[in-house]
């Protein structure tokens, strides 16, 4: 059988850009081929995925030369009808995938089948099979918009898998998934290729790349290598170069003393009665660094959003330095507890990076000189000094996440809370965020991060809190939490001990 996905000399340039997003890319995928694509942020991975799925230039305008052929169909000039059912694309963010208009997960999955005119009688069987593959059967009757980010992403993957296309393209599908979720997606992709499909997956996650047969390494829109997964992983870590030395955290501008946090018997229920957090108690001493880990939907974000009053407990309380925060407004707590949202788009609203980063310190009513000093130092730490005049909306998602982080760093909060800081970062970005955590700790401030990246958690945090089903099941230093004896317990909440030196050693 001939190639199912055939790309020849593909070049793509977006309107208003001088450099090409892709340049001279060629690729052949036959049935049963599982091929990875890796490379740093901005190397063209997403553009390649969009073009392979026929969305560039039909939906996203760009000038395109070269050819993309899917299942014998020219995808560059095809209509939606000609491509529907031939190729499916999974994006990294569920917002790009879900119709957001269906009341249940089951109906959300049915949406694609309806569009392909699948008979009603065959729908449930296909939906059940897709839900089984992604481990979301228990979510079938839930409203997709009330699920956690990782749960939504599994629904998003299922929503394309259910369509049963011969060619499947995925753009960082595991960015929001817990380790077990990432592994099950990796296994599923291998299985789908085994069934005779052609699968192209852009990723940084080793669990997924190691399942591929071969990998394309992109840099600056060009293929710099087509290699074995192991070589590609090593190349992915090497491209982008070394992190420049992290500027030391200067003397405190705001000089706010460290703060102790105590959460006591906290319970939070969402409308509809789902208990996201159940009677959780947790104390964090001033200057401590704590990583909160656990499977998608285990209540991590819900718990963290109580620390600065974004959510209020249904019972129990949160205190800062022994004082209950129940009657303090979110903005009054902002100077003490900085919160970096998982989705930067929930957080960015100014039209330049500099204004965005200065928004917080200005609200703290600091004098202009101090604001300037804080902004400069936050931009230096996040490596954004050269991009201060740009509009955050023109930046890619990993840079937008750094802007969001800088906006909170600039407030110099004694407690820094980050929700999935390394999500959608390439290896260089992950190292940068690790260095920021270390610098913040070094200055004697508290850092609390939610993360699915066990490697990151083990390397940069002195304490790991493991959550499952809204409760804390383990709370200790990384060495004890990731001890071999805990592996079965960790598995119950979708976690694996960090791959750490093991994988790097293998490479």
């Amino acid at each position, binding site marked *: 059988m001939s190639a199912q996905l055939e790309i020849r000399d593909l070049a793509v340039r977006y309107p208003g850009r001088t450099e090409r997003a892709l340049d001279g890319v060629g690729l052949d995928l036959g049935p049963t081929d599982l091929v990875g694509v890796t490379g740093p942020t901005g190397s063209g991975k997403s553009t390649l995925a969009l073009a392979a799925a026929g969305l560039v230039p039909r939906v996203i305008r760009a000038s395109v030369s070269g050819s993309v052929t899917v299942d014998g169909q020219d995808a560059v000039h095809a209509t*939606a009808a000609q491509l529907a*059912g031939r190729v499916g694309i999974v994006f990294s963010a569920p917002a790009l995938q879900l119709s957001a208009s269906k009341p249940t997960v089951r109906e959300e999955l049915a949406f694609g089948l309806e569009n392909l005119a699948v008979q009603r009688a065959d729908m449930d069987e296909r939906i059940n099979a897709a839900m089984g593959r992604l481990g979301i059967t228990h979510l079938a009757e839930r409203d997709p918009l009330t699920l956690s980010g990782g749960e939504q992403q599994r629904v998003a993957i299922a929503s394309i898998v259910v369509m049963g296309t011969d060619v499947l393209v995925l753009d960082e599908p595991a960015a929001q998934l817990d380790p077990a979720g990432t592994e099950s997606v990796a296994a599923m992709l291998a299985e789908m290729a085994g069934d005779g499909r052609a699968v192209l997956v852009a990723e940084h996650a080793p669990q997924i790349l190691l399942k591929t047969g071969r990998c394309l390494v992109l840099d600056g829109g060009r293929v710099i290598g087509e290699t074995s997964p192991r070589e590609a992983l090593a190349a992915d870590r090497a491209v982008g170069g070394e992190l420049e030395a992290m500027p030391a955290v200067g003397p405190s501008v705001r000089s706010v003393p460290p703060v102790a946090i105590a959460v006591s018997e906290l319970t939070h229920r969402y409308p509809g009665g789902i208990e996201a957090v159940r009677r959780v108690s947790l104390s964090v001493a001033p200057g401590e660094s704590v990583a909160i880990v656990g499977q998608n939907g285990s209540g991590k974000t819900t718990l963290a959003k109580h620390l*600065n009053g974004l959510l209020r407990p249904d019972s129990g309380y949160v205190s800062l330095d022994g004082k209950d925060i129940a009657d303090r407004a979110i*903005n009054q707590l902002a100077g003490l507890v*900085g919160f970096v949202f998982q989705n930067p788009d*929930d957080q960015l609203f100014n039209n330049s990076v500099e204004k965005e980063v200065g928004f917080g310190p200005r609200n703290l009513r600091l004098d202009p000189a101090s604001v300037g000093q804080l902004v400069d130092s936050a931009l230096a730490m996040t490596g954004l000094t050269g991009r201060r005049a740009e509009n955050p909306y023109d930046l890619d998602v990993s840079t937008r996440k750094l802007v969001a982080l800088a906006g909170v760093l600039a407030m110099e909060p004694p407690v820094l809370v980050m929700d999935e800081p390394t999500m959608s970062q390439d290896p260089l970005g992950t190292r940068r965020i690790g260095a920021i955590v270390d610098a913040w700790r070094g200055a004697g401030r508290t850092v609390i991060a939610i993360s699915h990246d066990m490697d990151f958690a083990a390397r940069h945090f002195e304490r790991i809190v493991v959550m499952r089903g809204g409760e804390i099941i383990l709370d200790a230093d990384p060495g004890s939490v990731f001890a071999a004896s805990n592996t079965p317990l960790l598995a119950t909440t979708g976690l694996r001990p960090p791959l750490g030196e093991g994988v790097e050693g293998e490479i």
Partner: protein
Amino acid sequence: MSSRPIGYFKPGNSWLHRRHPVTKLLGLVAIAITAFVLPAWALPAPALGLVVIALSSRLGLQTLGSLRLPALLFGSILLVNAFFFPGPVERIFSFGPVGLSWTGIVFGVVSAARIAIVFVASILFLFTTLPDDLLEALVDKGASHRLAFVVLSAIQLVPRLQGRATAILDAQQARGLAVAGSLATRVRALVPLIGPIVLGSLIDVRERTLALEARGFGARRDRTAYRVVIDPPHERWLRLAIVISLLLLIAGVAAGVVR
């Protein structure tokens, strides 16, 4: 976890919830027409009807709550007409061209009442009709599913914008912006909200386009439906009854029987 609302739908199983969406839509249209063709003295009849409908479907309090915002509109309709009613009317008192007139007050009350009736009927429709059911029902009755999807998106637009505004307000407060307090503070808090909401909506449109394209929306004309909205014979009889009553009413008004 996001908890973006997906519509005004209030889950329930009242007699009104159980009606076919097209029946309810037709009822809504009939009430809207009635509210504007009936003479003023007869307006309490549809108003009373709506109260009975709201109470019998256990939505009394929620309907009352939804009137808070448009109350401002009704008030302004009344005021503008009371003071600025054009033409040679008998004024209770006047300053130059402007003055309070009985004609204006009566006209204002009647206009506000007609609009209030349409508003309450629409709210009851939205409260008891799942947008998805409406969409499927309309497609089943021959509407283009693209058009139906546009209608659905329009219904969901306001709650989506509200959800977006809440997310941005949360983020701004988390960065120290005061949004509660004096009126001046509240107004100041509104300004930084407008840009991101507009921009966010545009991004939203782009994201939704990609999502719909990726899911094959609009790719085929012979689309199938997962959700089945049953339309038993009694619903059809009910719709016929609504149409006949409405025609009789219009005929009655036209012939001068109802004056």
